[in-house]
């Protein structure tokens, strides 16, 4: 693998992490969706680059799926849901932006530290990629935790999954990447449909996740 | 075989002796107390007359009383008498002496008390219950005290067998502090068990002070006579117990000749007399205590006995 290809994939992976940070400090839902679309695009690019580097055809498929599904369909769908349901447009944070960013930094540091312990990897690339992927995953989860709206939770989940796809793509010659990305698209679809469901069945006026816990099983 | 016959004869002699002499002892105590309080008092033999009179009277039994009420007097007398029979009065090594030991004697007296208390409850009057419950409280402290005293004696003499103990005492174990403790404790227990002043007053019928009398309040006629006799016997028993353990001199050792035994009997009667006088003096010189002071009194006995036993446990081992 040449230095150039290394740099490019590295750049793209780093960009992914950067965008995850951007996701963290969005305050408007629409902006959030746009940023997410951006992340999806970058993901598609980096997967495609991996496909080119490893000249693995199936990765192109994955890239295509990622682009079509996450960069186009889902954001559009969510846009429409938001406007249909008339959800108020700003993201409700549990924790302030500042602490969230700090936590994010800490997570990135943590993932790099953990990865540095990996010695045997011949090419640093995969290791770096893994470090980035891990931080994207963690940042995605952090986002799910610090945001209240169902929409931003969905977005967080999807960015988490982006990290997974990145890792899968980075893993040279890993079989089933396509299948996995498909399976995950199904998961995401379910999530979005779930959000729809609650609206259609007229049970929840808002998709604020709090509304989902109105009923508390056997609370005392 | 002849030896056995002789032993049997002496055993029976001893039993008859104690039961015959018991009223006399009581009479003596009463007489001494009367003299000391400047009264002429009843004659020495008054108790015999009382018993005879009571026995001849018809017995009145409360409607609510059960068969237990009527059998109790005989049970009490029997138990006390058997206990008394086991105590070497003028000769050790009596025929039956090995059929029960000191612990058994304590237990026999316990059974007498058990039935007496039941009889107190039987008629279903307040006084009977009062007497029974107080008696139970006294006994619950007096009995353990007695047992720990037995511990000390047994450890000194190396046996709980009373004949052996008496023999060991005569062979001279010397003066020991534990013996002193045991003696004091035993005296206290004896006073409590026989319902003497300061624990109880055998002469009173003043409701709030009665214990033993309250239990037998409903008895009359022959039943009363038997119970009175039993309590006199008990007094004699305790006195002869103290005597044979602490002043065993003159007692006829086992397989002693007839002469010695007769001498022993004489000695014994003399000792009883002295003890009776002492008891009378003691009773007149002290006032009765409140019922709930008695536990402390008996507790003291328990502590003394326990101390003695403890000393012996750590100081010596049994042969």
């Amino acid at each position, binding site marked *: 693998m040449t230095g150039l290809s290394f740099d490019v994939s590295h750049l793209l992976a780093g960009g992914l992490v950067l965008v995850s940070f951007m996701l963290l400090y969005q305050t408007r839902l629409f902006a959030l969706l746009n940023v997410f679309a951006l992340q999806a695009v970058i993901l598609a690019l980096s997967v495609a680059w991996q496909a080119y580097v490893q000249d693995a055809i199936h990765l192109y498929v994955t890239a295509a799926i990622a682009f079509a599904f996450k960069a186009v369909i889902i954001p559009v769908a969510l846009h429409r849901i938001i406007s249909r349901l008339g959800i108020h447009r700003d993201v409700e944070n549990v924790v302030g932006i500042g602490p969230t960013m700090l936590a994010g930094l800490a997570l990135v540091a943590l993932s790099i530290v*953990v*990865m540095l*312990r*990996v*010695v*045997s*990897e*011949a090419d640093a690339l*995969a290791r770096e990629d*893994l470090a980035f*992927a*891990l931080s994207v*995953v963690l940042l995605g*989860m952090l986002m*799910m935790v610090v945001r209240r709206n169902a929409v931003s*939770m969905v977005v967080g*989940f999807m960015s*988490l*999954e982006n*990290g*997974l796809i990145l*890792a*899968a793509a980075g*893993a*040279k*010659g*890993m*079989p*089933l990447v396509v*299948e*996995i990305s498909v*399976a*995950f698209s*199904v*998961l995401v679809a*379910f*999530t979005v449909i*779930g959000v729809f*469901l*609650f609206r259609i*069945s007229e*049970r929840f006026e808002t998709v604020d996740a709090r509304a*989902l*816990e*109105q*009923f508390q*099983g*056997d609370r*005392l | 075989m002849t030896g056995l016959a002789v032993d049997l004869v002496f055993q029976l002699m001893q039993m008859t002796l104690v039961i015959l002499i018991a009223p006399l002892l009581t009479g003596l105590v009463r007489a001494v107390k009367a003299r000391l309080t400047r009264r002429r008092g009843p004659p020495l033999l008054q108790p015999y007359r009382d018993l005879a009179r009571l026995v001849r009277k018809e017995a009145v039994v409360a409607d609510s009383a059960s068969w237990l009420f009527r059998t109790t007097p005989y049970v009490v007398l029997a138990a006390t008498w058997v206990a008394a029979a086991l105590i070497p009065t003028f000769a050790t090594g009596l025929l039956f002496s090995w059929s029960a030991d000191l612990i058994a004697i304590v237990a026999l007296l316990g059974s007498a008390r058990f039935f007496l208390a039941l009889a107190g409850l039987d008629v279903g009057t307040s006084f009977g219950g009062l007497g029974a419950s107080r008696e139970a409280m006294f006994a619950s402290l007096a009995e353990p005290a007695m047992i720990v005293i037995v511990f000390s004696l047994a450890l000194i003499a190396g046996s709980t067998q009373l004949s052996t103990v008496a023999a060991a005492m005569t062979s001279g174990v010397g003066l020991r502090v534990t013996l002193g403790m045991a003696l004091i404790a035993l005296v206290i227990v004896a006073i409590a068990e026989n319902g003497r002043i300061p624990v109880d007053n055998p002469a009173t019928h003043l409701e709030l002070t009665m214990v033993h009398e309250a239990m037998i309040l409903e008895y009359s006629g022959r039943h009363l006579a038997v119970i009175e006799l039993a309590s006199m016997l008990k007094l004699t028993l305790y006195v002869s117990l103290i005597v044979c353990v602490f002043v065993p001199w003159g007692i006829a050792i086992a397989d002693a000749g007839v002469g010695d035994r007769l001498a022993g009997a004489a000695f014994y009667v003399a000792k009883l007399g002295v003890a009776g006088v002492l008891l009378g003096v003691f009773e007149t010189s002290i006032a009765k205590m409140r019922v709930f002071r008695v536990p402390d009194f008996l507790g003291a006995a328990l502590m003394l006995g326990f101390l003695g036993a403890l000393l012996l446990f750590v100081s010596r081992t049994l042969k």
Partner: protein
Amino acid sequence: MSGLPLDGLAAILVLPAATAALLAFMPGYRVSAAINVASSLLTFLASLSFLFVKPASGDYFLVDDLNIVFVVLNTFVAFTASVFSASYIGHELETGRLTSIHLRFYHAMYQALTFAMNLALVANNIGLMWVAIEMATLTTVAMVGVYRTQAAIEAAWKYFVLGSVGIALALFGTILVYMAARPVLGEGVGGMVWTTLLGRVAEFDPALLNLAFVFLMLGYGTKVGLAPLHAWLPDAHAEGPTPISAVLSGLLLNVALYAVLRFKLLLDANARAIAPGPLMATLGLVSLIFAAFMLYRRRDIKRLFAFSSIEHMGIIVFAFGMGGPLANFAGLLHMTMHSLTKSAIFFTVGHIAQAKGTQQIADIRGLTVSHPALGWSLVLGVLAIAGAPPLGIFTSEFLVVSSTFARAPWLALLLVFGLLVAFGALILRLQGMAFGEPSPGDRQTTASTLPIAAHFGLVLLAGLYLPPPLVAWFQHVATMLK
């Protein structure tokens, strides 16, 4: 794909899949219920064939002694549960909780679930295993939500979100395993085939393996229902149809546990990687004690037993974490006994809920008076699950505790403490439900008591007498598990 000519392996996969497809278009719930039962029975019989002819394992499928235990147990309980559900689900239609279209969906999903679980169990490819478990999760999500009440949908949603996150973590772990394997095994399928991995794992990079195991443990541990990842479990049990609660407790948890075990074996084989045992033992102990205390404040009978499932999963994971032939044997035995007992209990609970028309513990009283059969089988079941002899769970708990105490006294003391706390809670609730003045509600129940009897019969038998072949089998597996 080694020999898909119709051997048992093909059967246990194809049968459910085909039936699922069939049932999806089958009107009339009676017929579909019958088909459901028949197909489950056939699947069970097919799995029994493993005991005699072990299919050759390939890159995708693997049948070894370990997963045969799981497969047979799974298909059996799936069968009995289908029998129960056949006699039970009609009632739901009458009471209008379900419509026939839902029932069609329900039966199709039932078979789909069976397919997914069998696939996960026989998968030799860790990617395939992951896909199968995800599928099983999605199907159960759908079934938990089938009543479409607010509570049911909330439970399904909670299950779905937490489950998906778990799935994601598990996938990351899987990828990491591949990454660790690649330098050694080269690129390609080989890097995801469990048997191949196990062969060379000793040369893998330990750091990557550790990282992978952390993710896998959390990911699949969520499915196992280990505290603190258990949150979805009680609601999913309580709000779904009772047969599904039985399947969840009796089967799905085992499947996830199976996945964890496979990866534990991998890590065990690499000397330089951290030993997975302590982590598992800790999680198990935490789950046990946590669930034991949670039992005290339950108001809903199905939630009560859901928490007892968490407790027992804790015991099992603890046993496997301790390792050693005795503890592993105990773990396997405990898993089997727990599946049988717990599903039987859920069957009973289904009857009770039908009879009393409520799931609230407070409204269920004096069952032994109003419904002697139900009441006493509840007593039997709770005593069994609480570890009372001569029932099977006592045997395994006996082995776990006694073998642990000789090795790690403090752990054993904690274990015993947890067991005792749980025992107290279960008995407290049991006495309230089984004895005293009966509460109103004495509808007679439609469902068949046959599965209950069958399960309890097996559990009782196991407590008294374990057939030597079974013992030999378990012992072999136990040694295999290190």
